[in-house]
C-alpha cells in the first residue's frame, strides 16, 4: 500500500516511517507537515492510505479528512492521536481506524488492514462527539489536479443547481461537490436558507427589498439589484430569514 504520513511534528513522522518501512509491504510515498500540504501531496501522489494526526496547526486532521473526501478517488484514512479521550470513543463507535502515540507496531498493522474510506457524516459525528469544531474553515475545490481552498469567511452565498452547488465568494465563483443540505447543517450558525436552492451568509445580507411583483429579495452588501436577482426569499423561509437578520 502507498501511504502518506501527515503530522506537524518531525519525530512523529520519522517514527511512523521507521515502522512502516521495516515491514517492506508498505511504501511511504510522502510526508506532510500540515493539512494544506497534505492535500496537495494527496492530489499529486494518490496514496491508498493517509495517516493523519488530529491536532495540527492550520487545518486540523478532521478538516483535512473532510477535504480528502472531496477527491475523486478519496484515500482511506487512519487517524493518529496522543491523547483525546472523546475522539477515541468516537472512533470506536464509528469503527474508524486510529493509532495512539507512541505508535505500536501491531496496532499500526491492524489499522492498515482495516483502513477504509470515511464518509463526511461519520467525520462530522466524530468531530461533534470529541468537541473538535466540525465546521470547516475552508471549502476545498479540486479540478484537474489543482487544489483551491476557499475560506468560508469569504463566502457570500451558495446556489444549488440540478447537480452542482456554486459558491459565490469575494474572489469569484466556483463549483463545489458538497450538497446544499450538508452545507446548511454544517454552517447553520452563520448561513440562512432563503429558498430551496440558496444559502446566504447572514453577515453579507445588507437588507431585504420588496420587488415590484410583491416578492422579497435579499440585497447583499455592496451588491446591485441585478446581481441579486437569484436571491428571492421564498414565502416559506421569510419569517426565518427575518428572525436571523434581527438576531444579527
Amino acid at each position, binding site marked *: 500500500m502507498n501511504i502518506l504520513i501527515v503530522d506537524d511534528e518531525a*519525530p*512523529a513522522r520519522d517514527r511512523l516511517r521507521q515502522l512502516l518501512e521495516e515491514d517492506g509491504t508498505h511504501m511511504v510515498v510522502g510526508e506532510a507537515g500540515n493539512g494544506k500540504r497534505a492535500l496537495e501531496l494527496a492530489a499529486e501522489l494518490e496514496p491508498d492510505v493517509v495517516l493523519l494526526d488530529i491536532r495540527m*496547526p492550520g487545518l486540523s486532521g478532521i478538516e483535512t479528512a473532510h477535504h480528502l473526501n472531496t477527491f475523486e478517488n478519496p484515500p482511506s484514512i487512519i487517524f493518529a492521536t*496522543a*491523547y483525546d479521550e472523546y475522539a477515541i470513543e468516537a472512533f470506536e463507535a464509528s469503527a474508524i481506524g486510529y493509532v495512539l*502515540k*507512541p*505508535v505500536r507496531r501491531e496496532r499500526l498493522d491492524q489499522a492498515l488492514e482495516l483502513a477504509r474510506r470515511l464518509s463526511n457524516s461519520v467525520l462530522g459525528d466524530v468531530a461533534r462527539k470529541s468537541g473538535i469544531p466540525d465546521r470547516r474553515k475552508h471549502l476545498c475545490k479540486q479540478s484537474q489536479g489543482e487544489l483551491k481552498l476557499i475560506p468560508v469567511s469569504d463566502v457570500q452565498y451558495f446556489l444549488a443547481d440540478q447537480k452542482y452547488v456554486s459558491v459565490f465568494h469575494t474572489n469569484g465563483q466556483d463549483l463545489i461537490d458538497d450538497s446544499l443540505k450538508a452545507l446548511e447543517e454544517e454552517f447553520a450558525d452563520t448561513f440562512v436558507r432563503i429558498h430551496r436552492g440558496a444559502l446566504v451568509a447572514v453577515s453579507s445580507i445588507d437588507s431585504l427589498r420588496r420587488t415590484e411583483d410583491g416578492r422579497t429579495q435579499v440585497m447583499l452588501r455592496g451588491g446591485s439589484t441585478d446581481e441579486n436577482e437569484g436571491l428571492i426569499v421564498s414565502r416559506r423561509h421569510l419569517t426565518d430569514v427575518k428572525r436571523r437578520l434581527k438576531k444579527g
Partner: protein
Amino acid sequence: MASAPEADDKYSQAILPDFCAAGTILVILLVAELVAIVLTLASFEAGAFLTELSKMSMYLLWLALGGTAVMCRIRPWAEKQGNTQAFVICFVLLEVTCIVLAVVTYGLTVRFAEAVIIDDTRAGFLLRTIAISSIVIALAMRYLYVSSEWRRSIVLEAQARISALQALIRPHFLFNSMNTIASLTRSNPKQAEEAIEDLADLLRANLSAPKDRTTLKEELEVAAIYQRIEKLRLGDRLSVRWDISELPMRALIPSLTIQPLLENAIYHGIELLPDGGEVNVSGKRINNDLRITIRNPVAPDRARKRDGNKMAMANIRQRFELAYGSRATVNVEQTDSDYTVQLQFPCEESTT
C-alpha cells in the same frame, strides 16, 4: 489590563447574609427579642415585667426591622466595596437607621401617648439607644465577619488541594513526549537518553509532595527542562526567550506555576501556529515586588476560543491568592495576536 472577574466573584460572594431572606429576618427578630428580654430583666420594677417587656420589644423590633430593610437594599452594593469596607458601611448605616428611628419614636410618644412611656429626656433616650445599638451591632458584625472568613478559608484550602492535583502534566504532553523518545531511540539514541532523563526530572517535580513555595531557581529549572523536551518535538517552531536576569534566584514562588504557564503558551499558542513562534518569559523587580510576564503569539482564529485554558489559570490564581492574599495579582491580557499572563507578587527570599 483585564482582571479576573470569574475568580473574584467566587471569593467575594456571601460576606454578608442575605438580609432579604425570611430565615435571616426570623433570626434577627429572635435576637432583637432576646435583647429586649435581657434589657427588661435588668431594669424592670416589681410587677411591671410584661408591660415593660412589651414596650421594649415593640421598640427593638421596630429598630431591627428597619435595620434589616436597609441592609436588604444595601447589601449587593456594599459587598462590591470589598470586605472591610462592607462591614464599615453596614455599621454606619445601621447606626444612622437606629438614630432616625429613635428620634421618630421619641417624637411620636411625646405627641400621642397619654401616659409617660419613655421616662427620659430626648438626649438621654438617644444616647442610650446609640450606646446599646452600637454594642449589639458591633457584636453581630464581628460574628458575621469571623464566620465569613472561616467559610472562605475552608473553600480556599479545598480549592488549593484540588489545584495541586490539577497542576499535573497534561496527558497529551506525556504521550507525545514518549512518542518523540520512541522515534529518537533509533535515529539519535543520545538525544533519546537525555529526553528520558529530562522527562523523569519533570515527572519527579510534578509528583513530589506538593510544596507551597519553591525558589525561583528551582521553578525556572523545571520550566527549562519542560522547554527542552518540547523543543525536541516541535523543532524550530518553538523558541523561548528568557529575560530574567533581574530576578533574584533565591526568591520564593508558589511551586509549579511557571512551567504550567509555559505549557499553556505552547499548547494553546505555538503548537497551533503553522510556523511556530517565540514565547517570551520576562522578569522585573518593582520595589518589593517581582513581576513575571509570559507572552505568546496565538493563531488569529484561536484568539477567542481559549476555554481549555481557564482551569489552569484559575488554578494558578488560587495558589497565588492562598500564598499572598491580595498582595499578589494575576492578570491576563488577550489581543488578536498575543496572549499575556502577568504575575506580580511580593519578593520574599528563601532563608535556607
